């Protein structure tokens, strides 16, 4: 009789996937509580001040936009330059980009004082403001990314079965990829460089007031964006059979990253050392901050050694570049280096307070350390990105280098004979 009462429990096994989801879920829950606290109380519960009004959140925002740059670079390479064989990587990059830009939006919503008025920049234009330009470009580019990733979402099995017609339209958008790539290239180059120019035009802060800010921001975004896409692809291929990579393809692109890093090292050194090797109030102090002050570890270890030199050598040396593990380490380090660059750039300019009293301006230093609530909400934004990418790998096959595009129809005139 007892046997008849035996209930059928659904089989539930703790897999690494479940643990991973649980971990991200916890981070997201904590961030949700943190976010509600921020919106309820206002920004005074952060460690931001009138002297350092931009901190950890803006770094997450800048970094996620920079690391999304793989999308426009690879889409341009595939659809405009014609390097067709990299199409599967461009597909991953597009998805990474979509996640990155939504992450940036989330971080910005936390950061601005009146999130309820986020739409004002779209309605009230100040075409003289770089921030306005960046906002417009980001909104428009996010739209482009949504269109670009439509064919990816169309591949979702459940969706394909439930709405076959819509899925058909969505995957048809693939035919417009070259046009979307042009729009993406235009908008991305504009706002990736403008994010640097946003700092570069601020005359009140001499350490930022440099024309090369926009060049450096765009250059580092291209290097970091491609690296993140490759790193994420390789990592997912190690962790799940759902992700299939073409290692040779990734190696080729990594070789490009290696030489791009050589250029980046030159530019960054020239920017940090040569441009500031002078005396102008604020400039020299900024250089000290990077080379010997509170940001020196970040600069020397994070940006130069681990962020540029080590991956450059690892990727230039054929034996380590061909070795998947070392290649992955190198690509991961590049991503870290770009984040360190964004953090250093933002914070170095803010930490120096330049006097406006008559006479030669003097420089004082202030300090900033993100508060717990900033860390919790910030890691929630990152957890959202990881979760979205994980779902993409599992259900949308965003990392699948065997992925075949729908065959292109060859148009030819009826009078012509089919070439044999």
């Amino acid at each position, binding site marked *: 009789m007892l046997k008849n009462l035996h209930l059928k429990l659904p089989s539930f096994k703790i897999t690494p996937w479940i643990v991973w989801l649980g971990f991200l879920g916890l981070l997201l829950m904590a961030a949700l509580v943190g976010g509600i606290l921020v919106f309820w109380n*206002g*920004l*005074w519960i952060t460690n*931001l001040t*009138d*002297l350092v*009004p*931009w901190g950890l959140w803006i770094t997450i925002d800048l970094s996620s936009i920079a690391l999304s740059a793989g999308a426009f670079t690879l889409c341009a390479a595939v659809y405009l330059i014609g390097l067709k064989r990299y199409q599967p990587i461009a597909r991953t990059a597009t998805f990474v980009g979509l996640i990155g830009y939504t992450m940036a939006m989330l971080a910005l919503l936390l*950061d*601005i*004082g*009146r999130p309820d*008025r*986020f739409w*004002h*920049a779209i309605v*009230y*234009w*100040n*075409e*003289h*403001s*770089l*921030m*306005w330009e960046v*906002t417009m470009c980001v909104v428009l580019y996010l739209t482009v990314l949504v269109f670009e990733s439509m064919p990816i979402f169309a591949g979702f099995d459940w969706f394909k079965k439930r709405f076959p017609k819509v899925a058909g339209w969505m995957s048809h958008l693939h035919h417009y990829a070259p046009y979307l790539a042009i729009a993406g290239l235009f908008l991305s180059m504009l706002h990736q460089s403008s994010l640097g120019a*946003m700092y570069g*035009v*601020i*005359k*009140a*802060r001499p350490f930022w007031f440099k024309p090369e800010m926009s060049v450096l921001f765009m250059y580092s975004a291209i290097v970091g964006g491609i690296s993140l896409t490759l790193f994420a692809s390789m990592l997912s291929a190690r962790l799940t059979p759902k992700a299939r990579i073409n290692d040779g393809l990734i190696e080729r692109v990594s070789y490009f990253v290696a030489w791009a890093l050589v250029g980046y090292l030159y530019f960054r050194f020239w920017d940090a050392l040569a441009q500031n090797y002078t005396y102008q109030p604020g400039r020299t102090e900024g250089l000290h901050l990077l080379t010997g002050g509170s940001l020196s570890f970040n600069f020397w270890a994070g940006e130069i050694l681990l962020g540029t030199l080590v991956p450059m050598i690892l990727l230039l040396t054929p034996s380590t570049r061909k070795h998947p593990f070392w290649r992955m380490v190198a690509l991961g380090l590049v991503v870290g280096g770009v984040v360190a660059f964004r953090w250093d750039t933002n914070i170095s300019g*803010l930490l120096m307070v*330049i006097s*406006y*009293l*008559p006479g030669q*301006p003097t420089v004082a230093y202030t300090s900033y350390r993100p508060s717990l609530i900033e860390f919790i909400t910030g890691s929630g934004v990152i957890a959202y990105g990881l979760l979205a990418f994980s779902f993409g790998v599992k259900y949308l096959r965003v990392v699948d280098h065997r992925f075949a595009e729908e065959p292109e129809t060859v148009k030819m005139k009826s009078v012509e004979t089919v070439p044999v």
Partner: protein
Amino acid sequence: MTKPIKRRDFLKVAAVGAAAVAASRAIQKANASEGVESGPNQWVMVIDQSKCIGCGYCTLACQSHNDINPDIQWNRVMAAGEVDGKDVFLPRPCMQCAKAPCVEVCPVNASYYRPDGIVMMDYDRCIGCRYCEVACPYQARSFNWKAFDGTNPAVPKWGQPEVARRPRGVVEKCAFCYQRIDRGLALGLQPGVDADATPACVVACPTGARVFGDLNDPNSNVSKLLKQNVSYRLRDDLGTGPRVYYLPANAEKMEG
């Protein structure tokens, strides 16, 4: 024989042409100040450092008339060294720059120029991005980190609030008590001469260190003072064109 233009080439030329027209239109107005006609009045403030004794009455009057959160000061008075053993002070309102970095960088036009030169804030439009705060060389802008819903300690002793309190999450700043100027002009008063039409800090100053008036009027107090004295402006090297002028401290003119 001329080659017919291909469609592709035509499109290329058209795109370049359109981009050039768009760029030239953007460059025509290199900054936002050029979009604003200057009006008949150009308000400026002259601060005589020989007369300023650092009492801070101006700050208190400002706090009450503009109903400012005690955590924030629109008008700060700072010690600025000494001359012949006498302390010198530097009061700092908003400079109302002619080429204000804050106006140029605002993504939503919440900061704007009035024809009379005052740099205004639209508190209903500000999104609280704090770019203006980062851009201002004078630290004249403050963010409302916290909601101000308590009582204002400066009220009623130093005056009654004349403007609405700013909400949490927007940046705020001094605007030369525009509300007093506008109301005064409507009543036929003369700003800088009649107390009711003059910024509260100028009225509150016990030593007359602050003078307010119209730079377009050659007979105004400010025009005369600037003609007769040496003056300077803060961080003139930045090219912001401040509308606050300082007369440097002169030990002979100072008391004790």
